[in-house]
């Protein structure tokens, strides 16, 4: 009996490099299952950032590349321009998307670049020890200081993005919800539209929480970062094309 691994998993790299209880493998597994469902493994690529996202460098059996902090999205756009038929996923954390990479992300959304951005939001800079990030909740203790005012990044991007892009937020305690939104995001990319899926994730190591506290904090995050679809082009679902 073998584990329930998706087809696009790289089995030789398991168990993964992520910490015990990390949310990243759950996101990547949902992505792998979505890629399997749409049978696009042969034309998918993954673009990684600095931070814990780079630990996905050998996670999936698709071409994966990694670049400077905050430049994941422009690199993914470059890849897409060179390979328009490929499906590119820019995999970033909340720091790489909403801090150092915010300018690139806003303009990618503004231009409507045909990429899918997956933002894994765990409210801290985890790789470097759990410092304050743009999405840290008020009074949340971090390595540097308590949180003050979080940024609702997906809502901000939806202001800049054209009306036909797909922007949604999911959470790691519902992997089926992640897959549902990733599916719609890929459909939007196939129609050359911009898509972003922010996924609320956990970091029990830096939060220093037991599983019960971890998931209680995730529920608290959902109040500041509501789940659901923020923006979408209904025509992409029905298949109508203008």
């Amino acid at each position, binding site marked *: *009996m073998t*584990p329930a691994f998706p087809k696009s998993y790289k089995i030789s790299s398991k*168990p993964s490099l992520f910490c*015990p209880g990390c949310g990243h*493998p759950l996101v990547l*597994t949902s992505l792998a299952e979505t890629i399997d469902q749409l049978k696009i493994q042969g034309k998918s690529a993954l673009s990684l950032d600095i931070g814990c996202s780079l630990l996905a460098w050998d996670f999936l059996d698709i071409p994966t590349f990694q670049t400077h902090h905050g430049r994941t999205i422009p690199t993914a756009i470059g890849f897409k321009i060179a390979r328009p038929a490929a499906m590119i996923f820019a995999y970033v954390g909340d720091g790489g998307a909403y801090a150092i990479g915010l300018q690139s992300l806003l303009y990618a959304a503004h231009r409507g670049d045909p990429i899918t951005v997956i933002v894994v939001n765990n409210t801290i800079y985890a790789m470097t020890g759990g410092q304050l990030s743009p999405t840290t909740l008020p009074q949340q203790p971090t390595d540097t200081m308590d949180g003050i005012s979080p940024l609702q990044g997906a809502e901000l991007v939806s202001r800049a993005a054209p009306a036909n892009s797909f922007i949604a937020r999911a959470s790691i305690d519902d992997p089926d919800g992640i897959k549902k939104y990733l599916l719609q995001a890929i459909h939007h990319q196939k129609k050359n539209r911009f898509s972003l899926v922010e996924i609320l994730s956990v970091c029990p190591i830096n939060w220093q929480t037991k599983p019960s506290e971890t*998931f209680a904090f995730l529920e608290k995050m959902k109040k500041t970062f509501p789940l659901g679809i923020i923006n979408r082009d209904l025509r992409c679902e029905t298949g109508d094309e203008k």
Partner: protein
Amino acid sequence: MKNIKQEYKILITGEGGQGIQTVGKILLRTGILSGWPTSYIPNFGVEQRGGVSLAFVRLKKNNSIDYPKFLTADYLLIACARARRRVIKYLDHQTKIFNFSRSQERPLNMIMLGRLAAELPEEIAKYIPNAIQLILGGKPGMVTNLTTYQKGLNFKNSSIFYDRHLPIKIDRRQEVNRAADKNKEHYIFPWLCKSCGTCLYRCPVKALHWSNKVYSIFNNQPAPEVDIKKCQGCGLCQKSCPERAIRVILS
């Protein structure tokens, strides 16, 4: 007639470091000159604090560059006795080991390179003198480097050995713990588990508990165990495990 392999995974190790990394750089340049996609990386770790230096070189025949680090080396060059213990996890019974730790020849890295070159196919090895000149050119002692390399090419076979005293590698990847009844089967793979406790927390009927027999990947932390009578077969443990260390199949 030497059999040309598709891939050569070479590990060079010794103390000091610069000589070791120079061999790595020369092999990288050689691979590029011969048209074989090659990659090389030093090990980044405690080497600067007096540890043993490692250089990983990977030569591939087909046209795709691969990540230079590997699990098991095809060839191992050892320049000092301490290096042998350091690299034991990169060896298996097929690794060819060239142990020069007792050699009095100097420069030692050139002798090792020469001995290795006698194993590599001619289409690669013929570029090594060019690569030596490119990497070490202009530095004093160039002639000594080249002549020592030529000497290494002609060393006898007695300096190779295959290691018969490797620690037994226990392959845990076959481990699976099964619990089943007429409705469902529940599998736990302890070699994937990291004892995070997410499955225990998420189970709606608290059917999972920590085992007192089975360890996770950490040898002081338990893996979970299921009480199949309480288990409902909902599969939430499978969905919430970050490593897919649980599998639930309904019959």
